[in-house]
């Protein structure tokens, strides 16, 4: 089964994905992103989401955690600090293992 890819995000950074052949859905704020995601979740298998939009949508995105698809991947949007990756790994680790096996050597 082939699936399509999409990116939901704000700003100019999504334009470069468009040139690479990924369907783009501009969303300036949380509300719009929610709407867009609900609409495209069934059609697109892989959805990239820029990091600024992820934080307010955290609970909404939990519903996608039950099934293998759609896969939602949070990517940095090119501005500001990216903390999502580390936070995600930490929370997953805490839930599954109860200990920190990745970051204990650092900091």
């Amino acid at each position, binding site marked *: *089964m*082939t*699936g*399509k*890819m999409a990116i939901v995000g704000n700003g*100019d*950074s999504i*334009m*470069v*994905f*468009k*040139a*690479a*052949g*990924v*369907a783009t859905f501009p969303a300036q704020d949380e509300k719009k992103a929610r709407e867009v995601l609900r609409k495209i979740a069934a059609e697109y*298998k*892989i959805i*990239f989401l820029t990091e600024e939009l992820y934080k307010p949508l955290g609970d909404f995105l939990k519903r996608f*955690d039950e*099934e*293998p*698809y759609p*896969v*939602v*991947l949070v*990517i*940095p*949007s*090119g501005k500001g600090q*990216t903390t999502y*990756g580390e936070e*995600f*790994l930490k929370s*997953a*680790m805490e*839930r*599954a*293992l109860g200990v920190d*096996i*990745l970051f204990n050597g650092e900091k």
Partner: protein
Amino acid sequence: MARLNVNPTRMELKKLKARLTTAVRGHKLLKDKSDEMIRRFTVIIRENKRLRQEVEEELFQTLKQFSVARSVTPAYSAETAFSMPTVAVKAECGTKTVMGVDVPDVKLVEEKRTDGLPYAFTEITSEADYSVGKISALLPKLIELAQTEKTVRLLADEIERNKRRVNALEYVMIPQLEETIKYIRDKLDENERASIVRLMKVKNR
């Protein structure tokens, strides 16, 4: 620990013993499953961390370069240049199982285009070419990251659920059954002793 509310009979004792053996066996199996899942999880989460770092770094650079390209071209020409992609990337989406958990298995299928860029070279600066090329090259990695991250999510959920099951068996179910079995056995022994004593008394009379 509260014992189960059953009648102290031989029937019940037999039933409970069967339940206890099943529970013990189930507990052992689940515990083994949990161990193996955690082992796999640690492998996958390490992989995830490595990929994440790589992708973030490369993406950051690409986007930076792209913003340079954006800033030196007028907005409308940039928009027209990028708004007609010549290629649509598609991904082959399957599922595989990791310890009984369905996880996505994605591969990129790309229709190759001839020149690699959706616009003419005269339209826009060369920085844009680089960034588009880089993003295209980065897509397989992005997809791999998406897949790994989803696997981590699903596996973490399953591990948590499994842990709860193991604990429920270990700390609730099995102690309860053991206590109830002991209670029934004590009761039956007591009854037996009582009847022996009664018989002895009757005989002595």
